């Protein structure tokens, strides 16, 4: 925790009185001496009080809602006097009448208060009808078949009863095998060709969209079974998929969690998608083996089946839904000595027995089943007889048994290895965030909602699952995503996908041809983008490496040039000094003659004049030499140069140009002035050069009389004028060396800036990297905490 947060924890301990005497004394002393701390403590105390008040207010509001609900339920129970099941109903009578088609007779459900609306359809194109009740009917042009042939020009009879008053008026029931259903409306849909009932083409089904005030979970489509008295029994429920919410794919946010915020912090315009994209897509994760990209994961039907049945996941989750809805009010799965505990019930009873008991307990008792009778006798007084749930259908009852088999303990694998590593590659997102995926389940709010969790699963397979199975309903993919992510480390993500699965979101039809084309596109695009990103990054790094090498060479070259210049200057100056001293002292030049004797001399005298001159030159110190009454002096006098406008310059160089030597001497900065000891034997000029950006400033002193001090202002000039100046005042070597020296300095400044910029860019890229490819960077726990924390901001 940050120190500030730790301090807050301290304050909490203080306010809770949980400090020991020693700590308390120290803390109180701190408070009385630190008014800021005191203020913090008071504010925290007030905030804590405020939070308690807030909690109480929320509780009061909740109580209000609870009160209302209580009032409502009471009203309902009085009104109906029976329990109400939360299951929807839709009437689909067409199927039941199939056998009667040949005889051209149909049960006439028309009666007073429920009449058909009639429509004539030419069926030349796809038709969309809106009925009086605002039911939208979408009919493909090849929707109707008669004797296996597509027919045109059909008559459509449609009637609906959506509101409770309409249902009552129409005299319809909402009962399913004796249990009452909550209805979302009923309708009847029949199409005729020349008076004969047509069938619906299973390849091109008719889609009805029935309006409702409120979308309820757990609605199913029932078929109406009409008996001779006209009573409708609702049977064969099929759960309804909840519709997806399509959106323009480019208006959705497919970036990783926190990406936009982080990019904005790094100075990118968060409103400019082009910029955000180009930054995002520049990332890639290297650990990914490219084989995966070569063979994208496509889930075949077999695997879908495997995943759904072998794991018993769908059954388990469906069973859980029903258990919670229908059973939990009386039964428990925990062993709490409850009469009706169902813990381990599968060990006590056979599956077949359970099935028939759940379906219809009273029939079982009547049939004389011993166990059923015993149960009934034992609990009838206290609990009454359980109602039958046969109307749920075999699948749902089996799923309840499946749930009981697990005693409500989730069957999801807990200790699977997690396929971590890279997680979702930006290149894959670039491939799908494309208009090509418009009108697929990718271009939906639901997919956008799942994507953060896909990112955080650190498993690109989860993304592939959705991308490459566009034709499946969302809930099916959610359930597989759940198995893919349900492991020790990522169980929270698995839990999320389970919740998504329970939303039972449907799909958007995509032809298999379109899916193949999109898969093809994805494969190529994702691979190309991945390689492009890799190439771009590699190019940047290669360029940096090249520049680094160039810079190193340049530094080396410059150092060599400096060394040569200094050596040659020194040699020339030494020769000059020595010649002067020898001349003054009257020492003749030794003409080198070979062969010669070499002798060792130990006494001082003229013999080590050379050494003394060397030291004088090396140390640039005025020295007087004497020999046989003659003296010679080498004078070194300081010259100082101060530039009044130096601070405005990017850099400044001050050169002393010795006429008699090889090249320039550098005047070195000491304090605010540039200094150099001038040799009395040499004539110097001074050239000072300053750079401000590309502008060059120059000052030239033609004659120097050391010792001397100059204060002057650099004057604006140009490269050309500088060259001209050097040409007319220095040697050729000096001109060349000065220009090289200035160039090097300019290069150095630029090079340093480049390195700094690159380092800053890399740091910034890294901060974004942590968000774009968190799986590569953090461990799974941290990833999940980041996502959860993001929800708090």
């Amino acid at each position, binding site marked *: 925790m940050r120190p500030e947060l730790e301090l807050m924890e301290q304050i909490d301990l203080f306010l809770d009185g949980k400090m020991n005497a020693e700590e308390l004394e120290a803390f109180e002393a701190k408070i009385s001496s630190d008014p800021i701390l005191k203020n*913090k403590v008071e504010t925290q105390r007030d*905030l804590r009080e405020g939070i*308690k*008040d807030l*909690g109480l207010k929320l*509780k009061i509001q909740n*109580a209000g809602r609870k*009160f209302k609900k209580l009032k409502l339920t009471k009203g309902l129970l009085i009104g109906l006097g029976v329990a109400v099941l939360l299951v929807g109903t839709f009437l689909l009578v067409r199927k039941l009448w199939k056998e009667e088609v040949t005889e051209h007779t149909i049960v006439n459900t028309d009666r007073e208060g429920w009449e058909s609306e009639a429509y004539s359809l030419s069926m030349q194109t796809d038709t969309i009808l809106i009925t009086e009740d605002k039911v939208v009917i979408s009919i493909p042009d090849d929707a109707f078949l008669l004797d296996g042939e597509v027919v045109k020009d059909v008559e459509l009879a449609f009637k609906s009863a959506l509101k409770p008053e309409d249902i009552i008026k129409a005299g319809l029931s909402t009962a399913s095998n004796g249990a009452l259903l909550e209805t979302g409306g009923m309708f009847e849909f029949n199409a005729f060709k020349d008076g004969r009932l047509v069938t619906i083409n299973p390849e091109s089904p008719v889609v009805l969209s029935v309006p409702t005030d409120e979308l309820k979970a757990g609605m199913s489509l029932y078929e109406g079974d009409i008996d001779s008295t006209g009573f409708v029994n609702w049977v064969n429920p099929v759960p309804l998929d909840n519709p997806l919410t399509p959106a323009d794919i480019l208006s959705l946010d497919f970036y990783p969690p926190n990406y936009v915020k982080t990019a904005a912090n790094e100075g990118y315009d968060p409103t400019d998608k082009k910029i955000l994209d180009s930054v995002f897509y520049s990332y890639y994760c290297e650990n990914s083996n490219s084989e995966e990209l070569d063979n994208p994961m496509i889930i075949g039907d077999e695997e879908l089946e495997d995943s759904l049945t072998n794991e018993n996941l769908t059954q388990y989750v469906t069973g859980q839904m029903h258990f919670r809805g229908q059973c939990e009010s009386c039964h428990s799965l925990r062993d709490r000595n409850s009469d009706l505990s169902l813990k381990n019930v599968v060990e006590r009873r056979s599956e077949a027995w359970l099935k028939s008991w759940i379906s219809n307990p009273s029939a079982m008792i009547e049939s004389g089943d011993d166990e059923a009778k015993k149960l009934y006798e034992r609990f009838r007084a206290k609990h009454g007889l359980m109602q039958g749930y046969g109307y749920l259908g075999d699948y749902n009852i089996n799923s309840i048994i499946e749930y009981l088999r697990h005693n409500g303990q989730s069957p999801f694998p807990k200790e699977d290895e997690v396929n971590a590593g890279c997680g979702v590659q930006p290149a894959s997102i670039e491939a799908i965030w494309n208009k090509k995926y418009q009108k697929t389940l990718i271009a939906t709010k639901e997919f956008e909602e799942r994507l953060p969790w896909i990112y955080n699963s650190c498993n690109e397979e989860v993304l592939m699952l959705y991308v490459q199975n566009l034709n499946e309903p969302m809930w099916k993919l959610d359930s597989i995503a759940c198995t893919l992510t349900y492991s020790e480390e990522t169980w929270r993500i698995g839990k999320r996908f389970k919740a998504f699965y329970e939303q039972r979101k449907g799909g958007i039809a995509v032809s298999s041809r379109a899916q193949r084309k999109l898969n093809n596109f994805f494969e190529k695009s994702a691979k190309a983008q991945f390689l492009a990103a890799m190439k771009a990054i590699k190019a940047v790094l290669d360029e940096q490496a090249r520049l680094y090498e160039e810079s190193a060479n340049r530094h080396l070259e410059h150092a060599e040039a400096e060394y040569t210049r200094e050596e040659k200057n020194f040699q020339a100056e030494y020769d000059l000094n020595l010649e002067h001293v020898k001349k003054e002292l009257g020492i003749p030049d030794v003409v080198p003659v070979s062969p010669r004797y070499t002798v060792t001399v130990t006494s001082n005298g003229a013999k080590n004049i050379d050494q003394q001159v060397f030291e004088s030159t090396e140390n640039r110190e005025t020295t007087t030499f004497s020999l046989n009454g003659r003296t010679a002096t080498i004078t070194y006098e300081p010259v100082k140069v101060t530039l009044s406008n130096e601070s405005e310059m990017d850099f400044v160089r001050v050169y002393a140009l010795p006429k008699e030597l090889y090249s320039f001497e550098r005047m070195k900065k000491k304090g605010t002035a540039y200094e150099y000891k001038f040799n009395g034997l040499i004539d110097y000029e001074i050239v000072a050069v300053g750079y401000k950006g590309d502008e060059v400033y120059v000052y030239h002193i033609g004659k120097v009389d050391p010792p001397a001090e100059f204060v002057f202002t650099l004057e604006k000039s140009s490269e050309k004028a500088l060259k001209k100046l050097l040409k007319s005042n220095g040697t050729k070597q000096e001109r060349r060396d000065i220009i090289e020296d200035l160039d090097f300095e300019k290069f150095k400044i630029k090079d340093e800036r480049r390195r700094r910029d690159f380092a800053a860019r890399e740091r910034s890229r890294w901060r974004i990297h942590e968000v774009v490819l968190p799986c590569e960077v953090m461990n799974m726990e941290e990833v999940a905490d980041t996502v959860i924390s993001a929800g708090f901001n």
Partner: protein
Amino acid sequence: MKDEKIISLLRKGQESTGLVQLYRYEGKVCAHVKANSGTKDDGKEIFQEALFHLVKKCQTENFTLSSSIDTYLFGVAKNLWSNRLRKKKPELMGDLPEGIEEHGEEGDRGAAIQKALLKLTEKCRELLVAFYFDGFKMEEIAKDFGFSSAKSAKNQKYKCLEKARSYVLPQSKQS
């Protein structure tokens, strides 16, 4: 449920059960507010405030109720409403029934604190309420909110608290 039972529930921290019972008096308060140039929503708000005062009062030590809860709640609500009206229209003054002291709305400091808390994200508020009001343990909170550990949850809790503090003390922006 008898008044004593309700009060003991409110005192024991089982507010919910007691509060649900008390909502049966909401209609009366709403009717009063509506009859005195207010709306039904005003009435609901005032009623909730009156409940707030009642619970706070019950939870102080040595509390005894001199009147019935009904009378008390109604008196406090009337009082609150006339205070609010007075702010709007000073000429409207209501007489206070006996045994019921003046009830103002929250003080400036309290209001500022509540405002700061409302500026937080809902999740932050939930987390803080769960800890400081409901008294859940950090481990339970971590589980409920999906954090990997109590430590992470605690860290988030202090971040939320820090944010709230920054709204109260906008001038002191410590790092």
